[in-house]
């Protein structure tokens, strides 16, 4: 039976009750991401689905505040009407984890730091969180940050809670930086280059002055994709300049106009090219290491069913055949050698309870991570075991 607080005071009460009984709480909005992270017992669920509503939106100030359970689609619609957006382009996990598309809440988006293809230019979800209100695992209401663009008053706890999977505090209200939407967009496709050359083209473009906002390579269609956004006149000239800049690569070029371009990047954002049966990994690396990682993994005999590169090769999505350790040993060994981290995004609960879903840390970092958790939630009442078996 989920607890469904109506306001922050209710959240506080629920967490204090859980503390008194030493009964851990799982936090969810609409549950679209409950299959992420280590599998936990989820005996008691604190649902923030009733904490809804945009409490402040000032388009001229580029700022929006919403309660944590507000559906993302509601926020997107509100921003749309003012020609604005969440520039970090939150990923929708439905294609990978099931559930209805667009069902995420803003609290969940921030709790997993879900960012999309524009991350390379616009930053991650965490870069757009200006401030928050929350109830910690101590049952205390804590706020941090503010509603202005520049703020260095006290520690930047916004960075800490973004991507913390609800393990530090139950977020109750979030203040986000919003940005104008580009007037239009186009995507330049370079086809038939093969992965190695295609990724090299993306890296070259990422160091160009043409402000490419997204760079992906989809092996399924053998296409290197480069997104350009801005006023039409600018997009047109940059596309022409970029085509010349990449002429040496000798690929077949084509253009996706605005609507096709949007659809293409939504597919990449949501990792649709790798959707299907099996285990799913998300690997973050230096862009130059993306291709090498996949080659080495193949060399190690891992049965890759599908993969796609985003962030100029710095983000690799993989789907593999299911095995007992979800190929964690092989993947981690390669990532450790290259630098970066690998997250198991989808696997059966028994596998997620057994292997490290998040990348193992060196001991000094692991113990600091645990001390930070204890600073907010000393009794491990929130999302116990979600990140690490020991807390």
């Amino acid at each position, binding site marked *: 039976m989920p607890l469904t607080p109506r306001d922050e005071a209710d959240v506080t009460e629920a967490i204090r009750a859980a503390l008194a009984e030493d009964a851990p709480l799982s936090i969810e909005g609409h549950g679209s991401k409950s299959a992420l992270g280590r599998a936990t017992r989820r005996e008691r669920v604190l649902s923030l689905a009733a904490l809804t509503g945009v409490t402040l939106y000032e388009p*001229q100030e580029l700022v929006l505040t919403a309660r944590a359970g507000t559906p993302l689609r509601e926020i997107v619609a509100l921003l749309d009407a003012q020609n604005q957006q969440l520039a970090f382009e939150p990923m929708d996990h439905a294609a990978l984890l099931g559930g209805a598309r667009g069902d995420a809440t803003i609290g969940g988006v921030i709790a997993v730091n879900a960012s999309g293809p524009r*991350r390379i230019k616009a930053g991650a979800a965490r870069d757009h969180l200006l401030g928050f209100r929350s109830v910690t695992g101590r049952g205390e209401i804590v706020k941090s940050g*503010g509603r202005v663009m520049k703020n*260095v008053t006290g520690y930047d706890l916004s960075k800490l809670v973004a991507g913390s999977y609800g393990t530090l505090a139950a977020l109750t209200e979030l203040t986000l930086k919003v940005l104008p939407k580009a007037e239009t967009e186009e995507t330049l496709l370079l086809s038939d280059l093969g992965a190695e050359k295609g990724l090299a083209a993306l890296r070259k473009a*990422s160091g160009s*002055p043409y402000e490419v906002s997204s760079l992906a390579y989809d092996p399924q269609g053998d296409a290197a994709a480069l997104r350009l956004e801005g006023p039409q006149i600018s997009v047109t000239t940059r596309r022409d300049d970029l085509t010349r800049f990449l002429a040496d690569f000798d690929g077949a070029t084509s253009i996706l106009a605005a609507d096709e371009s949007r659809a293409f990047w939504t597919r990449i954002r949501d990792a649709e090219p790798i959707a299907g049966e099996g285990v799913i990994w998300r690997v973050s690396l230096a862009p130059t290491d993306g291709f090498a990682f996949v080659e080495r993994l193949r060399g190690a005999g891992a049965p890759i069913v599908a993969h796609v590169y985003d962030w100029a090769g710095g983000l690799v999505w993989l789907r593999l055949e299911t095995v007992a350790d979800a190929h964690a040993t092989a993947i981690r060994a390669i990532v450790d050698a290259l630098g970066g981290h690998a997250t198991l995004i989808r696997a059966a609960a028994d596998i997620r309870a057994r292997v490290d879903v998040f990348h193992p840390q060196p001991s000094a970092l692991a113990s600091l991570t645990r001390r930070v958790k204890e600073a*907010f939630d000393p009794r491990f009442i929130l999302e116990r075991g979600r990140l690490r078996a020991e807390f």
Partner: protein
Amino acid sequence: MSLLMPLPEQAIMARREELLARLRAILPAGNVIADETARRAYECDALVMYRALPLVVALPETVAQVSAIMALAQEMNVKVVPRGAGTSLSGGALPLEDGILLGMAKFNRILEVDFENRCARVQPGVQNLAISKAVEYAGFYYAPDPSSQIACTIGGNVGENAGGVHCLKYGLTTNNILGLEMVLMGGEVLRLGGKHLDSELYDLMGLMTGSEGLLGVVTEVTVRLLQKPVSARGLLLAFPTVEAGARCVGAIIARGIIPGGLEMMDAATIGAVENFQPCGYPLDAGAIVIVELDGTPAEVDHLVAVVEEIARAEGATETRVSQSEAERLRFWAGRKNAFPAVSCIGPDYLCMDGTIPRGRLPEVLTRMDGLAKLHGLRVANVFHAGDGNLHPLILYDASKEGDIERAEKLGADILRLCVEVGGVLTGEHGVGVEKRDLMGEMFDETDLAQQQRVKCAFDPQHRLNPGKVFPTLHRCAELGIMHVQSGKLPFPELPRF
């Protein structure tokens, strides 16, 4: 000076000789500065009102030495204040009389430039501008550009989460770094992030950025490099009043344009600048707004026309568009010189650093004027208008009885006003010691206790840069972090202030 710092711990002062001997065993002979005259060079940062002579200055050259010094300090229970170039404006690097001043200036090498991954690994003592200089031959630069960029170091930029003119469009330090190496109190060396994007689990790199040297000592930074825009043009817009200028700024952003730079100056500052080093600003303007638009020439030309049209609609009395790179730089010259220029119209000034929601600008300026009159002082204004970051310069005369105190009081009133209208105490200079006692204006006891618990996770004995940022130094035990054994608090000698 009205600042209250913790009383030096006599037990530590008494062991100075032992500390010096043990530091000399870690560092080369010349890198332990014990002599009083030489230590004087470190007695303050750029907030020169507050000074203290450090117990000793240590200048490590390697990560191993930093680690050994931190372990030694932990063992001997000595405080450590990290310092880069000492350009901090909030007293963040103010030494402690019973502490080691850890100068990181010898960490001055660029270790690696990796254009393909658009990043560079640099040591913390490298100057901000030196990074851009080192990569400009290939068309790259490092975006955050604090006004002190010629002198300030990247390690200090991380400590303060430095911003600058570019940050409206390109973000602050926190948005432009990929990795850190740091040393904890106790000597453990950690690496956070790397050349990949996004930390996994807790974003400790994001937390470290802007933590004002209270959590760890940065020994290496991986910064993002950006390609320089193909072209940039400036607009110099004059308005009869600051209100009209502020409306224009709002209208530009409402149109969906995020300029590379968007700055404003009031009449007092314009007068000071023209008096200091004339660059052709209109002297009859109530405010001028400088806009920089960057991108491809076609995009920039298009946006210049849109911004000019907006400016006219908002009542601009003059609009100039730069026709050459030299002219663009001339538009900026006055803005860049604003601080030294203002110091010529009054013997001393105190630079404040509050951020407000931009829409409240006219109201805040009017009320600030009232506050200045109330305290009998003058204020000149320079703003990062695009992001609402104000830098009111309070003019005073230190040789006049009571002027410093008046300036401090006015400063505090201005910052309270910023918080009251929905803003914050500091946009880019940090809290340091300067705004420490105002933290309660923004945060309640629970908020502050939680922040200090984060400090306890990194530095349970509060040996790293204590006395900064937080108005009351709580022991970790009081915050429910440290175990109290047989009823005895650890470090009962630790003063509360």
